[in-house]
């Protein structure tokens, strides 16, 4: 049985953490709780729910910054931005449906803690690249802040980067400042049909090496489509689309174009891993790899452990489902194939609790790096109360 704690402000949060530290009580940290099924299962006594730390505190569209409570729902932020023709350029994805839950429920704190991003990541950066400032309570029960509320800052260590992707294991964020950017006026997608993995990676590479500023490049093997997204001012989109068509004319595959509305729907599908949502029994891996290695890695994995998958980030991201019968969820094969094909790393995003307690959900590291990470964890959370064991041994 767990006890739920729901602090209403940062002082209360600090006092609650101090109490938990004193009791050395293992605690799970949640925003809206949409990603609880990611990571190693843990046994906790308390559940610290940050959803009440919500609300936009400052939003200056002209300064390109927004400050809000970490528990603010993402949709609240996105609708505020939309009314000023702005957006989160890192295009945060939604894990909800992939994990068998409802869509559009996540909080900004969860997005940052998991360092989520979407198809625009390879051009515009990940959540961490837009995370400017933070106030948090560490596992020592102390409030601290890092970063600032302006877009350019190198004062002190970049604590935002440390917390981005730390999955609530170092500190509990109470307030965050993020960089926001203008939304594109127009979006079009060039589709190449009848593509195998080699065709697709060749086309995506050529597109990414061109000066036409492609902001999405994905390959969907089911339909054999390569998608190339072009966004921006209408005149510019038109010119770049024509240039891209000419550039890729010599490559295999019929070309067609998706308009703004169809583009939006299609890229949301790519972003939220829709192709792998339906069969919930399939374990799903998120694999970050050097884009040029994608064909070899895809072929090796499909010939061994795979059942389905697709490429995003111009080949740099492989969403991959494996045979549910495999004892280790394919971990050994996947990590072995990456190691012999230029590196990269794999994280198990969806898997039954039994599987998640048996394999390294997050990528294993060299002993030296793991020890260093462990020292950071130890310095921020000496009693190991925050999401203990979720990411790694500590």
């Amino acid at each position, binding site marked *: 049985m767990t006890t739920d704690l729901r602090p209403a402000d940062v002082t209360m949060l600090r006092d609650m953490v101090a109490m938990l530290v004193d009791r050395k009580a293992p605690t799970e940290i949640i925003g809206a709780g949409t990603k609880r099924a990611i990571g190693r299962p843990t046994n906790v006594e308390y559940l610290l729910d940050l959803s009440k730390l919500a609300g936009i505190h400052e939003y200056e569209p002209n300064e390109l910054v927004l400050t809000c409570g970490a528990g603010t729902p993402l949709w609240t932020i996105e609708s505020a931005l939309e009314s000023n023709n702005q957006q989160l350029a890192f295009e945060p994805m939604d894990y909800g449906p992939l994990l068998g839950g409802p869509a559009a429920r996540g909080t900004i704190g969860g997005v940052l803690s998991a360092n989520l991003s979407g198809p625009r990541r390879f051009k515009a950066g990940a959540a961490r690249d837009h995370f400017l400032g933070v106030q948090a309570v560490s596992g020592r029960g102390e409030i601290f802040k890092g970063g600032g509320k302006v877009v350019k800052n190198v004062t002190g260590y970049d604590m935002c980067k440390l917390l981005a992707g730390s999955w609530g294991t170092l500190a509990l964020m109470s307030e965050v400042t993020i960089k926001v*950017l203008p939304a594109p006026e127009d979006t079009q997608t060039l589709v190449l049909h009848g593509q195998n993995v080699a065709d697709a990676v060749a086309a995506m590479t050529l597109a990414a090496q061109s000066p036409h500023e492609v902001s999405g490049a994905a390959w969907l093997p089911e339909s054999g489509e390569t998608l190339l997204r072009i966004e921006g001012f209408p005149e510019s989109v038109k010119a770049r689309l024509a240039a891209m068509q000419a550039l890729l004319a010599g490559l295999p595959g019929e070309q067609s174009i998706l308009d703004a509305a169809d583009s939006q729907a299609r890229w949301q599908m790519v972003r939220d891993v829709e192709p792998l949502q339906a069969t919930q029994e399939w374990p799903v891996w998120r694999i970050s790899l050097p884009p040029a290695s994608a064909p070899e890695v895809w072929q090796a994995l499909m010939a061994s452990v795979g059942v389905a998958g697709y490429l995003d980030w111009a080949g740099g991201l492989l969403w991959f489902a494996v045979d549910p019968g495999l004892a280790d969820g394919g971990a050994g094969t996947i990590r072995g194939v990456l190691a012999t094909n230029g590196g990269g790393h794999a994280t198990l995003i969806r898997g039954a609790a039994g599987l998640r307690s048996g394999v390294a959900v997050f990528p294993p590291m060299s002993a030296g790096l793991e020890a260093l990470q462990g020292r950071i964890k130890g310095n921020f959370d000496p009693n190991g109360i925050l999401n203990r064991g979720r990411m790694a041994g500590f």
Partner: protein
Amino acid sequence: MLRMPEPDAVVLARRVQIAEDLRAMLPADSVIADEHQRRVYESDGLTAYRQLPMIVVLPETTAQVSQVLKYCSENNVKIVPRGAGTSLSGGALPLADGVTLGLGKFKQVLDIDLPNRCAVVQPGVTNLGVTQAVQHLGFYYAPDPSSQIACTIGGNVAENSGGVHCLKYGTTTNNILGLEMVLMDGEVIRIGGKHLDAELYDLMGVICGSEGLLGVITEVTVRILPRPATARALLIGFPSNETAGDCVANIISAGIIPGGMEMMDRPAIHAAEAFVHAGYPLDVEALLIVELDGPKAEVDELIERVRVIAESAGSVSLRISNTEAERESFWAGRKAAFPAVGRISPDYYCMDGTIPRGALAKVLNRMAELSEQYGLRVANVFHAGDGNLHPLILYDANKPGELEAAEDFGADILRLCVEVGGVLTGEHGVGVEKRDLMPEMFTEDDLKHQIRVKCAFDPEQLLNPGKVFPTLHRCAEMGRMHIRAGQMPFPDLPRF
């Protein structure tokens, strides 16, 4: 002037022995103990501060760096990493009892990988050297500090350096994929690679901007980008700083993120024009350079949109570049602004705060008052897009008291930046220069959490001590928990 930590007498007394030990692990010309040759390293870009290093080493391989650090760690000897020594905050200022470890021999571009849009380089390669290695292939490395012909990639990572294009393309941290680094105990770690995103904690993100306090960077994998098809610029004069500031805000709110957007105030315009004759208008209070880059169709369209915005904000002069030569002439004065100011004053002191852009007029007016109060002139160049100010304070170090007055003036400007919601440094780093101002922005607990990161990397605090943090806390002391049982809030919560 700032005080540095007291030198360690035991280490100083062993200087000759230490040099001999280092010679045993490095090529003969890689250990510099001779005073005349050490002099070269006594300062960096913050020239008001000088200190002769105890010894200088110039290793050639990662294995040698590792050996040196392991030895120094075992012998309690401090290390100051050094790239090209262009830091403007004293980050590479030597220590009297420290070994300055220069990366000058790490000069190779190891791998250019176009299919993966990246390059692997050694840390001593210059920033411009990276672009030069890939430009014949139509690529470039985006962060472009004004010091790019001299500064090194290792130094750029350590300072998280930016440049005039960083509003659109990001600073160093947004443009690197992988690192090799040697920790103080000699352990070599590799982070990232040719793929995106960290495995676990984003150590690369923390190391970037850590000012040589966490480890010695020995290899960097950088992202390279295809060169934009075109670039054109507008040179726009305004009757006041306020109208120029309005124009910047209106450009951003029209959804336009220019490749570069730079502002100069009247004193900076006059100094630059007198120096390079760029053709700048002299009858304006503020000058804006707005550069649009990208596909030709886009650039042509946006140039037009910016022209309309500028005119409605009250511009009094406006030129649009039609050729590369013209575009470069617009930049010539801005790029020469620092040396231009150097011509009209024996010395100048360059500040680097960032402010919310909305506070620009307030900050410039207050700066004018401070200028009167201190009796020192100030010229402003400004990365207008991202709010990063570079006030240049003019002084004469030979006049008694002027350096101190310039430093006090600078500190007041930085306090003002923090007061209006900004930060102490946008790209030059804290170093020794802003070390003692850190409490203006951070509480004791804020700083302690940063130091706890440091303690995970370098528990004995032998790497670049005396920089960034105003007080040195022993790591053991940082580990203590200050929570008293019995005085706990929520005593009634159930426990299990």
